[in-house]
């Protein structure tokens, strides 16, 4: 019965994607399709981290975006004086460090607290991170150089695809696949899933739930950091809280859309949300919406998913 439901989810997903692509091509919104896929991949990255933490501990990590912002801030600070490659590594290292610190200081003490308490706590972490960035830096956007400078590797449907964008997409696809394999096939991955559902049994089997927790957060922080360093140089530069302000809600919507327990879902959800947003911004029918139509449309998508099909496209029901 569950396999039927799984199949149903996959069929619906395929249908939605096909429909979306056809509609976009028909209405001449080709650029939106391409741009959407690219920004969507950034959302997908963050969504992966969100789903990872949610899958393993039921926590919604509000600070997921900040792992990325901190990473890109570090990249910004370093990349003028240090070769880009090292700056990247440094940035990712700082992100991972932040993940571990948050896990130790915030997540561990609240291990048994209701999940919503943890949401509030991670929101606090995010705010603190943003506040410190504003305090020590300025509240303006500063450009960050790209990893790969070629701007127009080729053109798809009228949109220039830079190497950076390719990198982003490629990294995302690889990571989504890796994580799916990790959770389904490796012992460590299975242990993480098991520990979220049955912590006592996991401990009894000699696996330290605490150490697993640290690993998960470090991994999520790494994903967040990657999202930051790969996507931000392409999208206008670093500003305090940039990933939280601009990316977190779409990433969350992506995760929900894909199904909070599905990693490939997070990837797909990201792409779909990206496309929806791109369309909202450029399509003429949405011109009259005051302010930013993308925000409104993403909100609507979120509501529709949560009300009509809460398990998302590929998630498990209930």
């Amino acid at each position: 019965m569950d396999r039927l439901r799984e199949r149903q989810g996959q069929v619906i997903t395929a249908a939605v994607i096909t429909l979306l692509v056809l509609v976009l091509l028909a209405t001449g919104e080709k650029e939106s399709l391409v741009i959407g896929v690219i920004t969507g991949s950034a959302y997908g990255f963050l969504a992966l981290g969100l789903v990872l933490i949610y899958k393993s501990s039921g926590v919604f990590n509000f600070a997921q975006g900040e792992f990325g912002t901190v990473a890109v801030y570090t990249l910004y600070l370093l990349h003028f004086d240090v070769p880009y490659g090292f700056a990247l590594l440094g940035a990712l290292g700082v992100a991972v460090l932040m993940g571990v610190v948050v896990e130790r200081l915030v997540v561990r003490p609240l291990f048994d607290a209701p999940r919503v308490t943890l949401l509030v706590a991670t929101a606090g972490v995010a705010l603190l991170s943003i506040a410190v960035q504003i305090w020590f830096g300025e509240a303006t956007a500063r450009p960050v150089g790209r990893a790969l400078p070629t701007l127009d590797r080729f053109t798809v449907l009228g949109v220039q695809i830079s190497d950076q964008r390719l990198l982003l997409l490629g990294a995302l696809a690889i990571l989504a696949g890796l994580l799916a394999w990790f959770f389904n096939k490796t012992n460590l991955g299975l242990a993480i899933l098991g520990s979220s559902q049955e912590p006592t049994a996991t401990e009894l089997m000699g696996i330290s739930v605490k150490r697993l927790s640290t690993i998960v957060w470090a991994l999520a922080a790494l994903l967040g950091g990657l999202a930051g360093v790969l996507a931000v140089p392409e999208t206008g530069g670093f500003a305090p809280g940039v990933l939280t302000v601009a990316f977190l809600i779409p990433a969350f919507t992506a995760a929900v859309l894909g199904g909070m327990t599905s990693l490939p879902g997070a990837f797909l959800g990201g792409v779909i949300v990206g496309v929806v947003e791109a369309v909202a911004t450029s399509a003429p029918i949405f011109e009259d919406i005051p302010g930013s139509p993308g925000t409104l449309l993403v909100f609507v998508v979120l509501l529709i998913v949560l009300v009509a099909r809460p398990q998302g496209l590929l998630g498990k029901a209930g």
Partner: protein
Amino acid sequence: MAVETASRGPAAETGETVEGGEPSFRPSPIGWLARGIVWAAIAWLVLIFPLGREAFELQRYSEAVIFGIIGLSLNVLLGYVGQISLGHQAFVGIGAFTSAYIVTEQNLSFWVGVAAAVAVGGLQALVLGGVSLRITGLYFAMVTLAYGLVAEKNIFQIQELTGGGLGQPAPKPKGFESDFRYYYLCLVFLAIVLWVDWRMMRTKSGRALLALRENPRVASTFGVNVRLLTLFAFVVSGAFAGLGGALLAHNDTRVSPETWSFNLALIFVIMTVVGGLRSRAGVVIGSAFFALIGYLLDKFTILQDGLNAIPGAPDLSPEIARLVIGPVLLLLTLTLTPGGIGQQIRPIVRWLTGHRFDLKDRGLKEVQISDVRA
């Protein structure tokens, strides 16, 4: 004869007792005198101390009082029901713009503006709650967050409502033009909100909310329509928030879209949690504190200097101070003293309301925000 410690039911959480539920304890005459003196001191601080202060300072005090109202509004949702709103600044902001719009564009009186703001606040909650209260916990929090974002990026960009770049003017009401009088007006509103909140929790709806929060199945067996009651609480929360918004608007005499950012939403949540969920006194104190941080930092520059002593740190402006201190206090509260300020002052509050002073009376052991299956 040993007197049993006071009942620790919902009364314990909200600092009051079901009538007749307490083994009798009567303070001695000296006890009454001591309590009276402390009450008088509090009254002096709130009522007399602000007399004759400058406008700017009074505006900050008014703001502190209004934040108290907003904190109480969020407390209804967060403390009594156990759901989070991460978009509460939208409710407050929309209330602010509503009142400003009614007074400036429609030329109606302040009182109509306030009433409209309250109604709009409640209505928003009704609509949003109607759609999304089926969604619980985590997801509901994110829906409210997204809603806050929509408010910021879409609703507050509507020119007719927000008066363009300069914001919408919102003059003070007739008879209360002086900041001093307005401060008293705000105090009156705070008193009204406190009264309504108190009565709500003391009667059937309050009991139903507490039952619902702890055990929704038992609540329905008691005949409570769980969904409707949750929606009701959300509407009350929205109405209080709308009131807060209207009062804020006329305090600043101008409302602009930039104020209502996501950071504010978090400040609201933080001040309520740090204040102490389900503790009215705690929430009011916590909210007032957060409203006044910036002002206090300006006035008492020793605090500023202390913070600037951190090596390499640039100057800490009041706005940033709030953003930095807030999360730190939040995290400390959540991990160390989940009951917040309310938990700490509980013995004092109990004492002041005529009970025995008991240092160990900290109300229920843990403040649960919500038992969630997201």
